[in-house]
């Protein structure tokens, strides 16, 4: 009976979704509402107004920068949730986890990882810094940094990995994306322009472009650093989950 109800409900949902999707504007047409209302301005003026030749960067950091500030806060919230629930290890390195995450990887794996990781991180830096002109940006670069450290952890184990991490700086780095956005926002407010405008008044000509680029860069780097470190922190906390014991219920 219960199963029947679930199937019926899912069938209803499926029919509704199919019906709706069938009526949606065609994907391959250039004259549909989603391509004629706000998008033309982004495409035509995105580079000069938004400050980045990569229109996507223009949109996510400038036109809708406030949303992106919210998105980095979502990631930060996820981190806080994981860390609060899984109890991050004591700050500083802890050897006690060594017995849990004892990794037996072969010499080949270790050597390859040792060579690959610096190169991957270099590529991540490139992705972060070049996000304005080519596909990429803080989020992508941060994910690559995170992936490289996770790769290292898989090959060498957690203690090896935490030894190489600047654990003291970890907490400020986790907030860095939000702080970068807020700093740029309040900088604008302090100089009398709107929140997150990426411009300072009283500066003209070439300098405007330079200042805007610098401010966008600060935000990109903030996102990259925070993104990477948050991925790493979440994975580290989850590796230690084995140690995590549920507290007994209060009767």
């Amino acid at each position, binding site marked *: 009976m219960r199963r029947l109800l679930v199937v019926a409900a899912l069938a209803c949902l499926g029919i509704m979704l199919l019906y709706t999707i069938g009526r949606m504007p065609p994907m391959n047409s250039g004259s549909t509402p989603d391509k004629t209302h706000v998008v033309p301005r982004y495409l035509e003026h995105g580079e000069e107004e938004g400050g980045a030749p990569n229109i996507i960067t223009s949109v996510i950091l400038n036109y809708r920068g406030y949303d992106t500030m919210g998105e980095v806060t979502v990631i930060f919230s996820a981190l806080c949730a994981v860390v609060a629930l899984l109890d991050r290890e004591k700050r500083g390195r802890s050897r006690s986890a060594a017995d849990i995450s004892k990794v037996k990887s072969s010499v080949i794996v270790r050597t390859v990882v040792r060579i690959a990781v610096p190169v991957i991180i270099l590529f991540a830096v490139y992705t972060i810094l070049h996000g304005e002109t080519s596909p990429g940006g803080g989020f992508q670069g941060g994910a690559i940094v995170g992936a490289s450290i996770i790769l290292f952890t898989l090959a060498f184990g957690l203690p090896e990995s935490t030894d190489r991490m600047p654990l003291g700086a970890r*907490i400020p780095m986790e907030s860095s994306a939000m702080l970068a956005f807020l700093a740029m*926002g309040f900088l604008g407010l302090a100089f009398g322009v709107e929140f997150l405008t990426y411009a300072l008044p009283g500066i003209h000509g070439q300098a405007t472009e330079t200042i805007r680029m610098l401010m966008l860069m600060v935000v990109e780097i903030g996102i990259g650093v925070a993104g990477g470190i948050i991925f790493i922190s979440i994975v580290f906390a989850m590796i230690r989950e084995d140690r995590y014991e549920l507290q007994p*219920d209060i009767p």
Partner: protein
Amino acid sequence: MNLAARQPVLLVAVPLVFAATCPLWGMWKRRICFYWALGGMSVTAFLAWSLIGKVSQKAPLTYNVSGWRPPWGIQIRIDTVGLLLACTITAMSILLLLYSYRYVEKEIPTQRIVYYYTLLLLIFTAMLGCSVTGDLFNFFVFMEIFSITSYALVAISGERRAIRAALKYLLMGATSSLTVLLAISFLYSVTGSLNMVDIGQVLERMGRTSSPYLPVAAAAMIFFIAGFCVKAAVFPVHVWLPEAHSIAPSPVSALLSALVIKMGVLGIIRTLFTVYGRGFSSFSEVWGALATVLSWAAALSIPVAAIMAIMQTDLKVMIAYSSVVHVGYIVLGISVLSVQGFAGGLFNIVAHAMGKGCFFLVAGIIIYKHGFRRIDDLKGLGRSMPVTAGAFAIASLSIVGLPPSAGFIAKWNILYGCLQQSQYIQVVLALFGSMLSAVYCFKVVYYMFFTGSNVGAKMDEGPMTMLIPVTLLAAGTVFFGIFSALLMPTLSNAARVLLAR
């Protein structure tokens, strides 16, 4: 620098600064986090409360973030409804933080306290962001923040059943978030805009030209309402609420019941009236059907949830079911489409926040002092904890809806609104539910004051930092009951503007 004109964005940016820096203080001294959070929310409360009188539903206060005009950029748009919620959130936040000071030391593992305060600051920021935004996607972003933080806050005590409840909440909450996101993408595909007011105008235009894409917009409306109903815990999809709200630490329960579910209600208001309101004529069938379904679901939920509440033996589960009852009242008021009912619904957001906040905080004090959760254990508690039990008794007047409390004014207006629309069956269901509410509330009051003592008659009250919020909330329910004229005319005006088409 003209800060006054930038106040709308500061309302979100300032608490976010405090949230982002809270873990940094935790590195140094854990205790500072509490003062940091309290200070941050006090500044924010000042920012929110100083806006009172400066906004109206017709002429909302707007702010274009990054200086882009809508629909290209994101606009913050504070109308009466948004300001009402913002003021409620900031006021409650201070009381809840004050209450948490002693509570968390006992009930939450020490190493989690830093992140407890960080999560609280994040959830307050996110709810403020939702309240003041004029952008649909921005609403979703902040909704994600308060959802994620509330799952974590439910589970933060680390008890096994808390984690189970949080998981259930997470699954339902994530599904509803996705439903809303799906609806936003449907709507974007046919309007090309994310600004609520602008979408309304585009929909109106689409209706005039009888665009072929109208069914997609109508389907999006259904998905919106379905998604927000889960967040608001409207009757058939309320199943996550009793478990999550009762097992969470008490200040978190109060936060979730008083504020977080109201964000779902806000979503319903924004969808039905700001986004789809202008294009009403093009959707009148689907729109009307949805409003009817909502009002029936809400009206049914009132007696059903009240019966469930009566059947409970655990105090906090009982209070949690009572929240379902009150969401029923709020949604009934909104969906019955009369000015008076709508204003009553909005008023009940505040009345319920105070009453239910007080209930959960009282339950928290009892757990803090004695570890009692069962209603039977409360016998004679009125003698040893007169302030706590007295606050509960006063708040229960508001929850039941007796004069001179705020709950009475709210229910009176909601029922009057139903009568104006000739919804007699809804009125009967709601009145029946009110009587049942009296049963479960006064049962507890009776146990506390009129039965033999379980714990002895010696005065043994909770700490001051916990008693002050409880007393203030109980006093608030009476204050707003007597001086309802402070709020009701403004809310009626807002309702008139929202319902006008």
